[in-house]
């Protein structure tokens, strides 16, 4: 009980203060709708279906980009960690594109592919690629030499070393990178939608803002935060389950 109070206590306090500030007239409700107004809008959105379809679209884009980006990221990271030639080639490219805001590619992709899913997913793909490459690379590099040697002494073939030793041994790193990539996937999908899109929750809240439906706008943002939070928690749970054997696995209560 105490743990729940601790977690939600301050948030509840903020909400109460917020509500009082608006209702008492201290804050202009145009700029900051009261909590109950937002709650009503949230309810309306939840039952109307508009938010769901758009959330679904955004989630779909984010997830597809994330999955493909992570898969390629792990592959490239593995290559870089096991082949000096691959490292020599990809290393500088990775270092260089690290500083590139992937959102800046959206206008270019719009020029190439128009407004829609492709632009969005491609951006997410590129954004999720890098953290996974880097974390996979570092994870594999950190695998103790004696583990590989032991496996080799017991007759493990080259191809098997990758699958049976390197990947399990670097799993914590890889999954940590994916967790970061998960965060990025939301940011970029929303960014791309806000920059130019016909659908998606990012576009939706912008529309609400432009048409003055501020309570709905706040409600939409809340929905995004809730989805991102839930996804992150799910990721942590996944990591916990997959890394039960690890002595440094993230505790379930961590952020």
């Amino acid at each position: 009980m105490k743990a729940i109070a601790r977690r939600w206590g301050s948030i509840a306090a903020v909400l109460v203060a917020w509500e009082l500030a608006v209702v008492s007239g201290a804050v202009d409700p145009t700029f900051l709708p009261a909590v109950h107004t937002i709650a009503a809008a949230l309810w309306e959105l939840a039952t109307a279906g508009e938010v769901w379809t758009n959330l679904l679209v955004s989630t779909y884009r984010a997830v597809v980009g994330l999955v493909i980006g992570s898969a390629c990221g792990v592959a490239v990271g593995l290559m870089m960690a096991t082949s000096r030639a691959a490292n020599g080639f990809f290393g500088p490219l990775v270092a260089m594109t690290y500083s590139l805001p992937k959102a800046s590619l959206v206008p270019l992709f719009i020029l190439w592919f128009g407004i829609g899913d492709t632009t969005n997913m491609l951006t997410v793909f590129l954004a999720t690629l890098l953290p996974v490459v880097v974390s996979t690379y570092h994870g594999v590099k950190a695998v103790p030499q004696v583990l590989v040697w032991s496996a080799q002494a017991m007759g493990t073939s080259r191809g098997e070393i990758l699958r049976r030793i390197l990947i399990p041994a670097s799993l914590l790193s890889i999954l940590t990178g994916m967790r970061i990539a998960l965060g990025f996937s939301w940011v970029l999908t929303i960014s791309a939608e806000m920059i130019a899109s016909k659908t998606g929750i990012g576009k939706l809240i912008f529309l609400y803002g432009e048409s003055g439906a501020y309570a709905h706008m706040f409600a939409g943002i809340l929905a995004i935060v809730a989805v991102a939070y839930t996804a992150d928690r799910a990721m942590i749970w996944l990591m916990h389950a997959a890394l039960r054997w690890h002595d440094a696995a993230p505790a379930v209560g961590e952020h």
Partner: protein
Amino acid sequence: MESAAGGAVNAPARLGQSVWRAVKFTYPIALVVLAWAIAARSGWVRPLFLPSPQAVAEQFWPLLVGGEIVKPLAVSLWRAFGGLVLALVIGAAAGLAMARMRWVRWGVDPVVSFAFPAPKIAFMPIFILWFGIDDVSKILLVAFTCVFPIIVSTYHGATAVSRTVIWSAQAMGTSERTLLRRVVLPATLPYIFTGLRVTVPVALITAYTAEMVAGGGGLGSALMFAQRFFQTPAVFLYIILMLLSGVVLDQVMLAARSRLIPWQPEEDA
């Protein structure tokens, strides 16, 4: 058995080594540019979609002279830095307070937990609503985006300060305020710096993205402008400029770090 010869005799060899290292590092990028040039020249893709590297480079001078590079860049940087400084001050203070005072931790921790995984760009409409589309809203959005990692790094750094160090200081009669200033803060500095190093690119990216979404000047707006008028070489150029600004900033951070915190060993990127 190692040779004692070095210095002047090896200077040309060392120069050769540096050149070789530079080549090794840049050849993939050179290859990409080469592939780009070949693809553009082959006529396989229309110049509207893929201008040649030359066409992109040629855009640089006219844009520069026309005031469309320096001013937008300065505006973006100003916003990024303004937000960053704000995030640093608030974040470090919050992190330290969280580490030293339990009730602050109790209050701030849930907020950080919820805010961390959320895409802060989603809050952009709120900032626009409250502060318009000019500098203020963007600086605040940058600050909002960057404050959380800084809080977390500072908090971890401050709690990592050894108990015995603090006890020794307290035994010598150090007040809480002085303790913070002369013991906890310097010990936490490397952690804050690490948080900062990760956050600097985020600040820049947030500034650019906010400008792309909402306009109001800056490199992001310039990029969108070029795209709207199908000026593809300019689009490419702006993207490259954004990339370079990030790279330069990162190098500056590294240099600053070794100057400000010389006692901390450097780690690889």
